[in-house]
């Protein structure tokens, strides 16, 4: 099963830089997780997105915010694990590298090409 792991900050809120120890720990942690195949993807969600809209047969393409509101998602990681408990343990290790704060995780009810073959 896959989990979407992310954190949010509010616009204008002060973000803390990582610590050198956390940085070194995190890069090692992520490298191992990549090698173990735990990580499906990691990235950041930009503030600006492209909106493709269909209305009465006419398409319009425009730029707009990712989600309305003042929270932004500076970083996310999609992981593939065998259980929710395993995901929680993994997220705990990740948060330890980052220091105090919250990480959120959401199980993805996603269908991939592999599922259709079954």
């Amino acid at each position, binding site marked *: 099963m896959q989990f979407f792991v992310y954190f949010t900050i509010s616009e204008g809120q002060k973000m*803390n830089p*990582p610590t*050198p120890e956390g940085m070194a720990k995190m890069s090692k942690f992520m490298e191992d997780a990549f090698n173990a195949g735990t990580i499906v993807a990691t990235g950041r969600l930009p503030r600006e997105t492209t909106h493709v809209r269909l209305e009465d047969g006419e398409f319009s393409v425009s730029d707009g915010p990712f989600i309305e509101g003042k929270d932004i998602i500076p*970083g996310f990681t999609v992981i593939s694990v065998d259980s929710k408990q395993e995901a929680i343990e993994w997220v705990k290790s990740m948060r330890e590298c980052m220091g105090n704060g919250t990480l959120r995780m959401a199980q993805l009810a996603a269908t991939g090409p592999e599922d259709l073959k079954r």
Partner: protein
Amino acid sequence: MQLNINDDISRIYKFESGRVLATLIRILGDFHRAEEAMQEAFSIALEKWPEEGIPKNPYSWLVSAGKFKAIDAIRRAKRGRELMEENALLATENVADADDPDFDLLEDDQLRLIFFCCHPALPLDSRIALALRDVCAMRTEEIARAYLLPTETIKKRISRAKALFRDKNIPYEIPPKSEMAGRLNAVLHVIYLIFNEGYAATAGDNHLRKELTDEAIFLCRKLVALTPAPEGMGLLALLLIQEARRESRVTDDGDLIALEAQDRTRWDRDLINEGISFIQQAIMSGRLGPYTLQAAIASVHAVADSLENTQWDLIVGYYDMLLKIQPSPIIALNRAIAVGMKDGPAAGIALIDALARDVRLKSHHLTYAARADFLKRLNSNDDAIKNYKKAIEFCQSGSERRYLEKQLAEILK
């Protein structure tokens, strides 16, 4: 109305000309010919669009206009070899647009153009001129103005690059995986230098300086969007965090303001946050490079509310990491300064004295400026004066010298 459409066309030039040129080079197989075709396509646009309106997909319009102009030119030349080229050209299907499965090629085209312009076989100043002109769509005159150089000089740098492309038969391609890391570093270095020129320059007005820092950020954003290399994100983070503080570090007269005297409320919080999130993402990739570490150092300064309340232990830690992957006397000196801020002036001076035995630091103004600063904090004014004088003697930059002279004058008062 007329004015508006010209604004729109300038904007389109800014954002599309790099993509148009990149695609034309692929179609025409020739850098010089593609450039001419691109310029002609834009002149037709300037004539037609004010009357006919801006086409739905300006990029496709410009590429096909450029392509047909190139075919015209080949027809006019009417030589056998080129007639063959014409036939080959006419056979190429129309260009990629967003609905096309070929759309991915477009991103490759742009990436190829960036790597081509920053090719390590070219002299550094030619790489910079080409990248600004062909990727950032700056005119030759604008580049010259921003660098305070005659237009002729920039023209020469560009034509030298073109001659080298021809003579050395440099392929127009995305570098193979085996060369990727080195080639990417060459691109990052060009972006870094463009930014620094705008950031450090104190001659010329603020507007010109901002032009260069903006272009460097534009180029770096483009690179990061095209290829997710961690050091690209690290560099982008560094540029954003520096840019956030750029305006508060210089007076209207072009004099430097010391970090401790800067108005930190003027720092752009959103740019700093964006920078930090790029640092986070660079770390997430599992590899740490020098740009990411420099960005991390900048970020610690950027979130502190004063010089005293800066987390100097973090900064020392980052310098330790940086020294491990990129040993350099200047980085060691900066680390010594951070240690002095963390553990007190005496600790800083002891480290600087040890480092000053290195010949490269013996004649560097920063060695004496830093020592003078710590001596002043210890109230050893006579020694501080001696060191400020030494620093002024070795200083190459006008604005830094003026800053040091001001410090010296203050003690002498």
